[in-house]
């Protein structure tokens, strides 16, 4: 049987944007697709051993609702419309938003990034780290999880050129 192929380029390094490539890769694998994900530029943050650098920022992101993941229902329903200027000057605002987001993720039964990453690797999703950006950002192979391959644009095209679905995220 001809297996379908899904190729994804993951370029974003924030907690929210770490989800789409991993969700689509793991689901694709579950549906019988052969899947490769090419991590480049900030997307490299998703495959680091230490992913505490994955944060989410409501600053300059008008699409992000700011809601509290605890308290009574009326309180959780409030959308905290905090002006950008205030977000920018309050120290630790981004970390606070990230803590709240992680709590919301857990409350909603959404998987953690580590969990999705493991599920992908268990399902034989191939992770490729872009060697050029690994060097550019001064990372070392030791900074990343096991089971990765390292390659360049040509490596990506080898698989992507034959893919049925190709996504740039």
């Amino acid at each position, binding site marked *: 049987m001809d297996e379908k192929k899904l190729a994804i380029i993951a370029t974003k390094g924030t907690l929210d944007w770490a989800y789409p490539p991993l*969700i689509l890769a*793991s*689901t694709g694998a*579950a*549906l*019988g697709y052969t899947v490769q994900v090419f991590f480049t530029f900030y997307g490299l943050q998703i495959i680091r051993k230490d992913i505490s650098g994955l944060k989410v920022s409501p600053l300059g992101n008008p699409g992000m609702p700011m809601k509290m993941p605890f308290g009574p229902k009326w309180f959780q329903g409030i959308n905290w419309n905090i002006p950008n200027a205030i977000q920018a000057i309050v120290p630790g605002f981004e970390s606070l938003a990230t803590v709240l987001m992680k709590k919301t993720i857990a409350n*909603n*039964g*959404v*998987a953690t990034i580590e969990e999705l990453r493991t*599920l992908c690797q268990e*399902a034989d999703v191939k992770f490729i780290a872009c060697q050029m950006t690994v060097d550019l950002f001064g990372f070392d192979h030791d900074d990343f999880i096991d089971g990765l391959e390292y390659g360049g644009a040509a490596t990506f095209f080898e698989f992507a050129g034959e893919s049925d679905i190709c996504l740039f995220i």
Partner: protein
Amino acid sequence: MHFDKELDARGLNCPLPILRTKKALAEMSSGQVLKVVATDPGSVKDMQAFAKQTGNELVSSAEAGGEFTFFMKKK
């Protein structure tokens, strides 16, 4: 309905119910039936799509009290 294995996917959100279903089916043999209970409303469409694309048969799909029960027959 008769089933050979049960998967509790309550409280899990997309794509976990599908991934757990796939994993559970992998440990079963052809013709066996897996019962899945989920609370994610998105799982209704997703289970249909999963069955259609993988060739496993979604024998039935029902909702009661905010819970969705699926019976999936392995290909």
